[in-house]
């Protein structure tokens, strides 16, 4: 139920309530009077949308090409894959059986175009629309099957145009003049004169492998065996087309209608089943099988050309591959944010002279590290730390010791200053120049300190 004019009104019904004479939009009070035992719940459009999206993902086991249609529909493109399930009728039966087991009331229709299937599910008998019957069943549908706005349907009905066939017989020009382009367009879509694209939720991968189990599986060992078979099959597929996998995704379809996804990225395109299996194996325990997994699909989300292996010809190729596989293992266990390399920062400001970037994908990167002619410390503190300078008695400019992290350190020698000007175009007008010194304490430790105005900071450690 949802709030409407004059109090709460019904937003959706189950078949039992509909059979009891209730209608959508009816005030709740009236419905209660008709069916005293009625149980009701507040409408939850966001929850419904989420549930529908989850259901759409779950339907990925039947077809890769799925779109959510409105608030309560799904469209699956099953062209060319019904034979996998034993024909169109068997496919419908299979989907129906699964939906019923999930406790969902549903109407299924299979027709030559999305508009026809929509009309056949909502206004026709449902089921498979027999192509041999021609257009007759569609023409007999009510005008509402054209998916026109309700007011327009009412206007059409006032003119005596109650069925699709009534509109189809009319000359197109007067219809367009009176009602605009919409009825004509919808008519073309329904009767298959025009094509309607389906935009899928997840663009389907070109290469995928599917495995379905007679009995749902749940043990990690079983999942692993199934995964190994899928990977081997996908790798064979890639080898035939001369491609290597760069990114892939495993989708597990659970008995309870949920899906579990596992994505994997590779540093270098590969079709080595053993390597890919090892990478996946580390994450198999993340899959929650719930009450069991019925089907698994492995998709090549991104693939790149990979010429056939030529063993022994290029010794470098082995090194590059081994390093790429090492990176894969590190990245997949630790996350990409924790496998890094040092990149030159294109700036003379110390904090910006270096940055961390993701580890190289393959081979040597065009790193422009140049030999620094000025001495730079081996370690840079995450942030400059304030220090206290202690000047020699009676002298302003000759420090004797300094205090860093509560430890007083006697100064042994110093070198500098080296003035580093701020980058005004990046740091704004507030930044000040720094005078850097290399200093050494009496134990021989060397520090990189600077003075900014009257304050001193320690910024790095020399080896």
């Amino acid at each position, binding site marked *: 139920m949802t709030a409407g004019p004059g109090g709460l009104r019904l937003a959706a019904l189950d078949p039992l309530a509909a059979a009891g004479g209730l209608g959508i939009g009816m005030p709740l009070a009236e419905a209660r009077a008709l069916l005293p035992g009625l149980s009701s719940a507040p409408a939850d459009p966001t929850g419904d949308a989420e549930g529908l999206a989850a259901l759409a993902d779950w339907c990925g086991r039947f077809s890769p090409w799925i779109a959510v249609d409105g608030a309560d529909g799904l469209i699956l493109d099953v062209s060319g894959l019904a034979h996998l399930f034993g024909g169109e009728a068997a496919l419908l039966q299979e989907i129906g059986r699964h939906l019923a087991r999930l406790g969902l009331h549903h109407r299924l229709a299979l027709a030559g175009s999305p508009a026809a299937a929509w009309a056949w599910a909502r206004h026709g008998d449902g089921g498979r629309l027999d192509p041999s019957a021609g257009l007759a069943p569609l023409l007999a549908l009510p005008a509402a099957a054209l998916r026109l706005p309700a007011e327009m349907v009412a206007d059409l009905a006032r003119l005596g145009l109650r069925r699709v066939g009534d509109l189809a017989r009319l000359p197109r020009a007067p219809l367009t003049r009176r009602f605009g382009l919409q009825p004509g367009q919808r008519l073309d879509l329904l009767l298959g004169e025009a094509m309607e694209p389906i935009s899928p939720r997840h663009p389907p991968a070109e290469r995928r492998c599917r495995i379905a189990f007679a009995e749902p599986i749940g043990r990690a060992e079983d999942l692993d065996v199934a995964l190994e078979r899928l990977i081997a099959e996908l790798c064979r597929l890639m080898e035939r087309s001369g491609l290597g996998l760069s990114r892939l995704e495993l989708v597990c379809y659970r008995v309870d209608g949920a899906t579990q996804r596992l994505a994997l990225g590779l540093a270098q395109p590969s079709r080595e089943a053993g390597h890919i299996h090892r990478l996946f194996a580390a994450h198999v325990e993340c899959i929650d099988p719930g009450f069991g997994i019925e089907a698994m699909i492995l998709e090549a989300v991104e693939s790149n050309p990979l010429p056939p292996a030529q063993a022994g010809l290029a010794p470098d190729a082995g090194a590059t591959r081994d390093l790429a596989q090492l990176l894969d293992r590190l990245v997949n266990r630790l996350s990409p944010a924790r496998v890094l*390399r040092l990149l030159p920062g294109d700036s003379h400001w110390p904090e910006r002279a270096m940055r961390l970037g993701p*580890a190289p994908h393959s081979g040597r990167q065009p*790193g422009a590290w140049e030999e620094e002619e000025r001495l730079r410390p081996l370690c840079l503190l995450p942030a400059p730390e304030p220090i206290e300078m202690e000047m020699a008695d009676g002298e302003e400019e000759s420090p004797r010791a300094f205090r860093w992290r509560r430890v007083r350190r006697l100064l042994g020698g110093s070198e500098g200053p080296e003035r580093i000007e701020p980058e005004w175009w990046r740091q704004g007008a507030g930044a000040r120049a720094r005078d850097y010194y290399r200093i050494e304490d009496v134990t*021989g430790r060397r520090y990189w300190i600077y003075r900014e105005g009257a304050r001193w900071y320690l910024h790095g450690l020399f*080896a």
Partner: protein
Amino acid sequence: MNIIDCPIQTMSQIFVIEDCKKTDISILKTRTRAIEAGPAATRPQILSFGIAPLDAALPDGGLGAGLLHEVSGAAGDAAARGFVAALAGRFAGARGEAPVLWCRLRGAGQEDGALYGPGLVRFGLRPDRLLLVLAERPAELLWAMEEGLRCRHLAAVIGEGVASGLSASRRLQLAAGTSGVAAFLLPPPGGRASASAAATRWHVVAMPGRAVPCWRVELRRARGGGRPGDWIVEWEDAAFRFRLAAPLADRSLVPAASR
């Protein structure tokens, strides 16, 4: 010693043995040990310091690849890091600029800051050949090191911020031995020395009074007949090599005076 019983796989190994017969029984011992360890570990790469007394104190006449080396230091002192960076840079140079894997425990080295690329260059370790791994837990760091040590196309694997313990260091030593990659461990400064299977253990701290990096390098233990000792060593960043600090060069076998 029965040379004939050693598993000989290739002509080159036979050649090595014959070659050794003429020269030195101790080199022959090393070679035999390497052959017995398996095909990957044959001809272990030995990196000499280029400092006669230091090399003489090590059983193989230098630092061996395929072995685990532990280098401890002091807090607030980057000397141990510099020493390891210089050694890793030399291993990388000897292996055609192969990459170096540097694993750090996150938070552990925070006090003394992060590796700074512009400062790394002078130790001969090129920042573009460095792979940095940030681990959250010691177990993760040891895992990453072990993975790295299995890949024989790395020049060196460095782990910073954990004290390994006996079993973990054995695993690292084993992995390093099969791939022939040099492994370095930088335990957190100030920690008590734990039991370890490392082949060599060093303690490196800064020394005063010199412009170039100058360290007091103390060899605390070397397996297989090394002689512990300490030396004052400088790093020549122009030539990427070690040298003995000048005043001590002429009495090189005498341990350096304590500070």
